[in-house]
């Protein structure tokens, strides 16, 4: 196996960052259980998925999590923090 490129969509960015994912997107303020957005918000879900897939083609820093804002989501949920 030569390896398979991956991109993670995470709603627990600090927790995910501990695992140093090759590429990761954090939709800012999305709650756990809403990785792509809320039920039925297909346009928002498409935007999030396009953005995540696009990270495959961008020069991101491996191991880091990219945060993006999606105002259409309409809420902000504090993500879980990692105890340091």
């Amino acid at each position, binding site marked *: 196996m030569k390896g398979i490129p*991956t991109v993670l969509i995470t709603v627990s960015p600090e927790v995910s960052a501990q695992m140093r994912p090759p590429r990761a997107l954090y939709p800012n303020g999305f709650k756990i*259980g809403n990785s*792509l957005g809320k039920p039925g918000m297909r346009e928002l879900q498409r935007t999030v998925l396009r953005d995540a897939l696009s990270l495959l083609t961008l020069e991101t820093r491996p191991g880091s999590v990219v945060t993006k804002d999606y105002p259409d989501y309409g809420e902000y949920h504090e993500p879980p923090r990692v105890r340091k």
Partner: protein
Amino acid sequence: MSISRKCVPFTPFEDTLAKSTIAIVTAGGVHRKDQEPFNIADELGDLGYRVFTDDVNASDLKVTHHHYDHSDADKDINVVFPIDVLRDLQREGFIRNIALKHVGYMGYTMQLKAMYEGTAREIANEIDKGSRADAVVLTGG
């Protein structure tokens, strides 16, 4: 081959999305309703995973996971397993194809070593063999 946990296992993506086949792997406890549910009674977690083919219907999927609120996924599985969203992106030409195989597992375990060295590898092999995926989207809950 063992991978150091200190390094980032980065595999370059050398193609364009419009020519690529994409698979989804979710830790959100997603499985087909006719597949065995994840064992949420075991406090150590369930190390198993379930494979779905590219023709899976969103309405045939459900979540068995007791470590996050999946009430929204119960209404629309795409919020954690975006299979219909991926189909939309294929239709609009953003990606070329949907992979032949996708995977759901329960992203909660007290058996980290078994998950990391066992389940994770098995899932990677599952995708590597016969899914035709060029890249994978990973989701949690």
